[in-house]
Every structure is written in structure tokens, then in C-alpha cells.
């Protein structure tokens, strides 16, 4: 029985999966997801799709915040740029989606690069405030650049078409979203086994020490912004195809705070954590909605309170995690796993 990590080579130390069991589990999970849609309702497909998009976005933010230590309150702006540039590339230029999404993500990367320039001079709080103002400036541009973005009227996006099949329902777009979620997770997971990923972590832990050891801060901070905003760009492109109409109002500051909360609640510096955080934050309002629906018999006004109850629960969850479990759901998951790994001798 395995009762500890016995790593005798760097290769085994760097391995993502220690044993074959998690691989089998993951393959089963993916297979389960793939055959799931026919049995699901539109409502749950919509929730699943939003979770998938949130996973990509949250991993992107975690790379920047959790792994590189650069605080960004502008993630909603990244998503907005990704969504709008993808949509504009399809509507105005006429590109198919499989070109528009990567190109849109590249545009977002360029945008992230500009966004990241202040990080070369500013740290911590100042960077947070700089990204906050960048967020407001970006949304202002989106609202007012009406010839491109249609402003507050909303920009409709044609459905993605695969081999003549339009992905116009939640059941169809599901496969596109999760076909991108899986490589997004794998790439992030592998990124931190490479030189670049380790450099990110070094910058986070102590930037001066990192630069003494030959990690170029200029290069890696900007690279972190580029990678992070590429993820956000992909997530934004998927949002455009999922909701099929874009409003500037879908990218408020609250969205950025939601993504920050996903990273914090899920666990900073953990890829699994981002996944948990995305699931948690997407399910939270849905669970409240279901509770309210079941309560309408007893308490007819319950539905009117969802928005405010969500605010309260969200705030309390953030405060609770920061105070009692700063490493987030990822840490709970690790504890849970190690408990069962050694069961029944887990003490």
C-alpha cells in the first residue's frame, strides 16, 4: 500500500499523475461528460457551458494572480476584448469561428501586453488600482466605439459552424467549449513544469531574488499577462458563441470580482483550484435560484431576493475562505484525498 511519495528521480517528481488511477478516473469523467448532453435539460447544459467558460477564464487569471503574483482587477476587460474581437472578426471580416477564436485570443494577448506594462513599474496595490482604471477605460471604449461594437444595442454573433452543422444550441456548443477546456487545463498544468512556469513562480515568491537568478522580470511579467489574457480571450470568444449576443453590461467590474473570487475560493496557485472555483461560483447563484423556487410555496417573495442573497452569500464565502481556508477548495480537496488514500489508517 502506498503511504507516501517515494520519488527517486526528477522525472517522477515532475509527473502530473502519480498513479494510473486518476488517469482512469479522468478518462471516465470525460467520457461521462461526452455522453451526458442527450440526458440533460437545456437549463443544465447552459450551466455546464458557463462552467466550462469560467474554468478557462479562471485558469487564465490564476496564472497571473496565483502563479505570478500580479494582481489584476481587469479580467472582465480581457474577457470583453476577447469576446468582442472574436465577434467582430466573424461579423465584419467574415472569418470562420476556428480562425476567429484564436485570432481574437491573440488580439486579447496584445491587449494584455499593453495592460501589463504598468506591472513593470507598479506592484501590489498600485497595480490593482492601475488595472481597475484600465477596466473602466476599456468598457468606456466598448460602449462608445459604436461602429464596431454596436455599443449598448448589443452585437449579435452568428453561430459557429462545424462541417455545415451550426452550433446554435447549448447541446451543440457544449462540445466546442469542452474541446477547448481540456487542452486549456493540460497546457496550464504542463506550463508549470517548464522553465517559463517556474520563472513565473519565482517572480511571485520574490521578484528581486528571481531577477538576481537571471529571471528577466520584464519578460516574464509581460509573458504572464500575455498567457493570462490569451486564456481570457478564448473564454471571451466562447462567451460570444454561447450567448450569441454581446452587451457591454456583460463585462462589468462585478464580473472581474467574480473571477477573482473563483481564484481565491478555488485556491491561488492551483489549477485544480481554478476548476473548483469556477464550478463553485457558477453553481452558487443556480443553487440559490433552485432554493428560491422550492420556497415560493411557503414564501412567495423568495424570488425577488435572489440577487441580494447572492451578494451576501458571495461576500460571506469570500470572507470565510480568506479567514479560515486561505488556500481554498484546492486545499480541502488535498486533505480529502489524502484522508481516503490512507483510509482506514488515516490519522
Amino acid at each position, binding site marked *: 500500500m502506498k503511504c507516501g511519495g517515494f520519488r527517486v528521480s526528477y522525472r517522477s517528481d515532475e509527473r502530473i499523475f502519480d498513479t494510473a488511477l486518476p488517469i482512469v478516473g479522468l478518462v471516465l469523467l470525460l467520457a461521462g461528460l461526452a455522453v451526458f448532453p442527450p440526458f440533460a435539460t437545456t437549463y443544465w447544459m447552459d450551466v455546464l457551458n458557463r462552467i466550462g467558460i469560467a474554468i478557462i477564464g479562471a485558469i487564465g487569471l490564476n496564472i497571473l494572480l496565483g502563479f505570478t503574483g500580479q494582481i489584476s482587477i481587469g479580467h472582465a476587460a480581457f474577457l470583453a476584448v476577447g469576446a468582442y474581437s472574436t465577434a467582430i472578426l466573424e461579423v465584419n471580416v467574415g472569418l470562420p469561428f476556428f480562425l476567429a477564436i484564436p485570432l481574437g485570443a491573440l488580439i486579447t494577448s496584445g491587449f494584455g501586453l499593453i495592460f501589463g506594462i504598468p506591472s513593470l513599474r*507598479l506592484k501590489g496595490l498600485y497595480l490593482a488600482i492601475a488595472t481597475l482604471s484600465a477596466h473602466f477605460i476599456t468598457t*468606456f471604449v466598448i460602449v*462608445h466605439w459604436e461602429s464596431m461594437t454596436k455599443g449598448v444595442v448589443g452585437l449579435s454573433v452568428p453561430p459557429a459552424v462545424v462541417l455545415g452543422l451550426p452550433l446554435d444550441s447549448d447541446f451543440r456548443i457544449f462540445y466546442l467549449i469542452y474541446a477547448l477546456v481540456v487542452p486549456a487545463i493540460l497546457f496550464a498544468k504542463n506550463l508549470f513544469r517548464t522553465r517559463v512556469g517556474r520563472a513565473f513562480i519565482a517572480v511571485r515568491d520574490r521578484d528581486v531574488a528571481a531577477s538576481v537568478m537571471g529571471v528577466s522580470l520584464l519578460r516574464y511579467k509581460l509573458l504572464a499577462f500575455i498567457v493570462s489574457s490569451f486564456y481570457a480571450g478564448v473564454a471571451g470568444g466562447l462567451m460570444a458563441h454561447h450567448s450569441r449576443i454581446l452587451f457591454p453590461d456583460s463585462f462589468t467590474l462585478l464580473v472581474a470580482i467574480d473571477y477573482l473570487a473563483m481564484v481565491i475560493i478555488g485556491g491561488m496557485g492551483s489549477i485544480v483550484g481554478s476548476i473548483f472555483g469556477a464550478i463553485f461560483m457558477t453553481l452558487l447563484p443556480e443553487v440559490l435560484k433552485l432554493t428560491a423556487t422550492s420556497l415560493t410555496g411557503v414564501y412567495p417573495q423568495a424570488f425577488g431576493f435572489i440577487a441580494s442573497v447572492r451578494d451576501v452569500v458571495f461576500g460571506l464565502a469570500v470572507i470565510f475562505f480568506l479567514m479560515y481556508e*486561505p488556500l481554498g477548495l484546492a486545499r480541502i480537496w488535498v486533505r480529502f484525498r489524502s484522508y481516503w488514500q490512507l483510509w482506514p489508517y488515516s490519522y
Partner: protein
Amino acid sequence: MTEHLVFMLQLVITGIAVGGVYSLMALGFVLIFKASSVVNFGPGELVLFGAYVSWATILNMKMPLYLALPVTLVVAILLGLVIERGILRPLIGEPIISVIMVTFGFASVIRGVLNMTWGSDTRPFPVLFSPEPFRLGPVPVSPVHLWSFVVVLILLLAFSIFFRFSLTGMAMRATADNQQVAQSLGVSVKRIFALSWCIACVVSTLAGIILGNVRGGVDFSLADLGLKVFPVVILGGLDSVAGAIIGGVLIGVLENLSGGYLDPIFGGGVKEVAPFVILVLILMLRPYGFFGKAEIERV
């Protein structure tokens, strides 16, 4: 006087009046930052809280003004204590992102609780001043703007005297200067932290009451104004009370001027974004603001 000049003067005067309120909010922010290096990302919600509580005491519970105001301020002090004791004290020494996030967290709780208690409709505020504008030379000024500015001026003066001459005020300045030295001289740093939150909540509440009067009603859009605190404090310097006051007025004037002149070109909304453009420019040129301590380390 030409029409053009009157237009400009009007913008400047409104800007000064609104900027005074920004100064008040920024004062609360700077006090907290100076004392405990906590960045409050929910200043708007504190303002909102004050505005709603004062609305509830004056109009809902029909208290007379001399009773309603103290009650409101006591509630604000309690809120400050709860936030400091319950939320921020356990997080002393945590990384800055945790502190930022926790302030987002309690801001969200305040917003939710207010929404649950009083709903999201606009609540009319009692009209204390005649809406009829009077003329200052050729420029029309509305009384509510003038009065709000006078009140802000008195408050700021009172706080300056408090910090300058009272023992508690000096203890607060000492703590801001150097926590360890202050502690060795018998200042209870914990009490100062709590006190700075209480004062911040009180000034935010007063700002809320004034804003409610200026706009003639309270609704949740007040909270968005709270984020204007950041341009103000960055312009004035994060740890400078004088900077907060001057920065508030400057930002108020700048946003009104840019709104007045650029709105026709961009089609509205310039007022909301101009302070943040200024903010980015200042961060690039002089990150510690006009009056702040220059301790930005190069990275």
C-alpha cells in the same frame, strides 16, 4: 462676461462642490490606509450604507433631524467596529490580494443586506434647500451645492484640528508614522485601527447624506461613485490627508470640465471615465501622488 466663460465657471463650481464630497470619501480611505495599510475597495458601499441608514431614520422612522443624525452616526461607528474587529483584524499580515478581496467581500455583503432590507428603488431624500439657483455674479449656483461645500469645508476643518491638536489625533498620526515606536510610547495600535475604521465609516456616512441631498435621492448607483476615491487618493498621495482633500476637489473639477467639453464629442459618459484616465497618467508619471511618501521600489 461671455457665455463661454459662464459655462466654464459653472462647471468648475459644480466640480468643486462634488469634489468636496470626494474629498470626504478619500479622507476615510486615507485614514484607514495610513493607520493599517489596508486598501478599502468598498468605499462606495460605506457611502451607500450611510445614505440608506440616514434615509431610514429620517424618512422611514420619522425621527427629527437632531435625533436621526446621531443615530445614523452611531450605526456607522458600529459598522466600522464590526468590519475592523470581525474581518480585518484576523487578516493582519496576510498578502495584499487577500485584504483587497476581503474588502470586496464585505462590500458585497453590505450591498446585499441593504438591497434585502430596503429594495433597489430610488429613495427620495428630504429636500432641505430650495431648488431655485441663485446667482454668484453671472453664474447660477444651486444652493444644495453651496451648502454641501460649506458642510464639507467645516468637516474637513474639524478633522484637521482633531488630528493636529487632540491626543487621539496625535496618536493616530504617530501610528501612521511608525507603528512600533507608537506602541512603545503607549499607543494602543489595535484601538487606533478600530478608530480609523470608525472615523472612515462616519465620514463616508456624512458623504452619503450630502450626496443624497445633492442628487435628491439614494439608489445603488451611489456605490459606483465610491470607486472615484482611487483617482483622488492616487492624485493626492495614498497616505496624505491634505492630498486627499486637494485631490478630491481637483478630480471633481477635472471630471466636470472634461464631461462638459468632451461629452458632445464622445456622446456621454466621459465624466465617469476621465478620472481613471487621469489616474493612469499619474501612476505612470508620479505613482506616489503629489503629497504621498515616495517609497515605491523599482522592480
